[in-house]
């Protein structure tokens, strides 16, 4: 590498960008809130914005490992945890908007709603997983749980899958015939499947080899 300092600077820049980018949707919601620009149905606006941010960050956090492997960018690995934690934060805010702001902590009513609607049950399971993973993401728990910890962290795929299903079911329309605004949740679902496939050596090894081959051509050594 010609300039190791430059490389470190770029890495740092990316890390900062991840934090700033992850906090941006929250800053946006707060800004709209204080300026009174959340629209005519503020609860719905906040539910949508926090929900979208949670799904987007979840997909990004799952993109970290495949990207790191394929492009051999080890430093990316450190972005996984903050992205996952931010996703959990937005999922938590999303639920808070629902339970505290919309339903005023009327537990009876909240429970009635959740058990009656499959899309909310799915969302709740996803949320529980995300909160659990966020809570155990720290070194203390990593040490304490040992092997189980890695297994536990893998359930993030389940949480993401359930979040996408929750999203698909939250859209007004018909899922069977895809009549409705299904573009965004389908993209999220498609990316999720792609990222899952890229975790399988059968899929990522050839890409890795191919890219390696390309970069090796000019005769440059890593």
């Amino acid at each position, binding site marked *: 590498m010609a300039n190791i300092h430059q490389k470190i600077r770029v890495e740092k820049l990316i890390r900062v960008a991840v934090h700033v980018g992850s906090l941006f949707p929250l800053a946006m919601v707060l800004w709209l809130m204080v300026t009174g620009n959340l629209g005519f149905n503020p609860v719905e606006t906040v539910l949508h914005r926090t929900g979208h941010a949670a799904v987007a960050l979840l997909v990004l956090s799952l993109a970290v490992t495949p990207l790191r492997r394929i492009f051999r960018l080890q430093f990316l690995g450190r972005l996984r945890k903050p992205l996952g934690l931010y996703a959990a934060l937005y999922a938590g805010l999303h639920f808070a908007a629902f339970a505290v702001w919309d339903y005023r902590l009327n537990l009876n009513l909240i429970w009635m709603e959740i058990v009656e*609607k499959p899309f909310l049950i799915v969302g709740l399971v996803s949320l529980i997983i995300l909160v659990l993973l966020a809570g155990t993401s720290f070194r203390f728990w990593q040490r304490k749980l040992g092997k189980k910890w890695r297994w536990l962290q893998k359930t993030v795929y389940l949480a993401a899958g359930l979040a996408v299903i929750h999203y698909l079911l939250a859209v007004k329309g018909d899922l069977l015939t895809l009549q409705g605004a299904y573009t965004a949740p389908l993209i999220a679902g498609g990316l999720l499947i792609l990222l899952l496939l890229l975790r399988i050596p059968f899929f990522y090894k050839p890409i890795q080899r191919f890219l390696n081959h390309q970069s090796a051509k000019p005769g440059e050594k890593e």
Partner: protein
Amino acid sequence: MADKKRHSVPLNRDEVTPKHIYQNRRQFLKQMGMVGLGALLASCAPRKPGASDIPPDAPVNGRTDELGDALTSYSAVTGYNNFYEFTTSKEQVASLAQNFETDPWSVRVDGLVNHPGVLSLEDMLANFNQEERIYRMRCVEGWSMVIPWVGFPLHKLLAEVEPTADARYVAFETAVVPDQMDAVDSGRFPFPYLEGLRLDEAQHDLTLLATGLYDEPMPPQNGAPIRLVVPWKYGFKSIKSIVRISLVAEEPPTLWNIVAPQEYGFYANVNPDVSHPRWSQATERRIGEPGRRETLFMNGYADEVMPLYEGMDLTIQF
């Protein structure tokens, strides 16, 4: 949830003079730079002698529906709309629809009637006394408003065209204008938007053909220039920008029922006891009000409309 309060108070029905409507309409058209044949015709329309003038920007503060709930602000009523021909984004309908051409406009009335024909908007404004009706509007998405509509009961129009003895349902159709409606060709929904009512529902005095709101001509985003308002049913039954009304013998197809029949029944009466897979039907958000309130059976119009559904199981025929 069994002992919901079911209010029944007579509705506010302040008469609004046609003259007032016409004047507003002309003013509106002029502002929009659309002085066409329709506007000329409107200016020739007969005026009621001695009619009182209500200032167009009369304060609405303090006005309520018959249950005492305040009107929803004009900006919310005209800024938060479901009109999927333009966009699925409720706060963008107003700007996307602002140039929707509604002059001239006519409605074809056909099917099982003795006097089929094409009624221009001016005909309808001239022939049917325009009155104000303050109705609650409950959207299936779990939000609601209180809106001062201007219009005339559909039964007046039906009486003119005389449904035949075979007519049992009324079918409605929204305009499809692809070069003015950004989303009709998106393929997301099978437009034209279709709706329908049973004939007796259509003939109920609460069922309104609305030509305006807040004392002014119907804004495009609210379904200009003429739309249906059926206050005891979820909002999607109240079809917008109507170009055709047909009397038919069989239950007509309706858009949301085609798209997702398990979620949206033909009747779509507001009913907190019939749940929806996405939104709460037991409670609702009143736009402009914090928190949630209980949804009233038949949106609070049960006393007026329940005779229509005698002997029906409304949880099955929802």
